[in-house]
C-alpha cells in the first residue's frame, strides 16, 4: 500500500456546502460476486442516521456527516488525522439493478450491496448431444 493510500485524502465537494468543515474521500473496497457488487467504505464517526446514499441516473453518491465535538477543557497536543465529512461518487453501469440496492452502516463502515440485474447474471447453457 502506498503512502498516499494510508492517509485521508481531502475531497472537494461537488455541491456547495453549508457546513464549514472539510470533506474527505472515504477509503473503499469493492468486490464482485456472481450475483452482486459489494462496496465497503470506511467512514469512522458516522452512523446510519448520518450517512446518505443517493442515486441519480447512474451516479451513486455516498456522503457521511461527522459531528465535531471537541472537549473544551482539553487542548489537542498531537494529531495524525483530521475530522470532517465524507463524500465520494461512483458511476454505475447498467449491470446494476437500481431498485435493489441495499445499504447498512455498522461501526463506521458503510456496506452497500449492488445486485446485478437479472439479464447480466451469468447463465449456464446446457449442452445437448446433437
Amino acid at each position: 500500500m502506498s503512502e498516499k493510500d494510508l492517509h485521508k485524502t481531502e475531497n472537494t465537494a461537488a455541491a456547495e456546502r453549508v457546513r464549514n468543515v472539510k470533506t474527505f474521500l472515504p477509503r473503499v473496497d469493492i468486490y464482485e460476486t456472481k450475483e452482486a457488487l459489494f462496496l465497503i467504505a470506511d467512514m469512522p464517526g458516522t452512523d446510519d442516521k448520518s450517512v446518505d446514499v443517493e442515486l441519480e441516473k447512474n451516479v451513486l453518491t455516498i456522503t457521511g456527516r461527522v459531528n465535531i465535538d471537541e472537549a473544551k477543557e482539553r487542548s489537542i497536543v498531537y494529531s495524525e488525522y483530521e475530522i470532517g465529512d465524507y463524500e465520494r461518487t461512483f458511476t454505475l453501469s447498467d449491470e446494476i439493478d437500481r431498485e435493489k440496492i441495499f445499504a447498512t452502516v455498522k461501526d463506521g463502515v458503510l456496506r452497500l450491496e449492488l445486485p446485478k440485474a437479472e439479464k447480466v447474471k451469468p447463465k449456464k447453457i446446457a449442452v445437448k448431444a446433437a
Partner: protein
Amino acid sequence: MFTPNLWRFRGFPDAAPEILRLQREMNRLFSNVEQRPTQDYPAVNIWESMESAVVAAELPGIDADKIAIEVTGDILTLSGTTKINALKEGETYLRQERIQGSFNRKIQLSFPVDTQKVEARYEKGVLSITLPRLKENLPKKIKIN
C-alpha cells in the same frame, strides 16, 4: 531516518498534520530505499489537560472485544486485528483501499497514568480512551511565604 517524536509538536498542535506530512516527504527524499515509510496504524489524536489525556483512534469496522488496550506507566499500547474479508471462490476485488490485518501501536503520553481509572469507549468506528493522570504525579501548588 527521522522518527516522530510526540512532544515535538507541543505548543503548535494545529501545524502537526502538516509537519507530519513534511516529515514523511523528507524521509522519502532522503531514503534510497524503495519502500516508503508507512504511517502508523491506527492514526491517533491526543487531547490533554492537566488531569487527564484522551486518545482517539479511527478504527472503523472492528470488533470492540478484539481491541487490546494496555497501559504501563506512561505507555499506551493498542493492538488488535481488523476484520479480514475473505473472499470466496469466484469473487474478485475491483478496488482495495481499506487497511486489513493486525496492528500494534505504542503511544507515549507526557505523564504516568492511573491504570485503575482508564476508560475506553468504541462508538461509530472511533475508539476513545480517557487516561487520568496518576495522583502522585499531579503538579503541586507551592505557596510563597
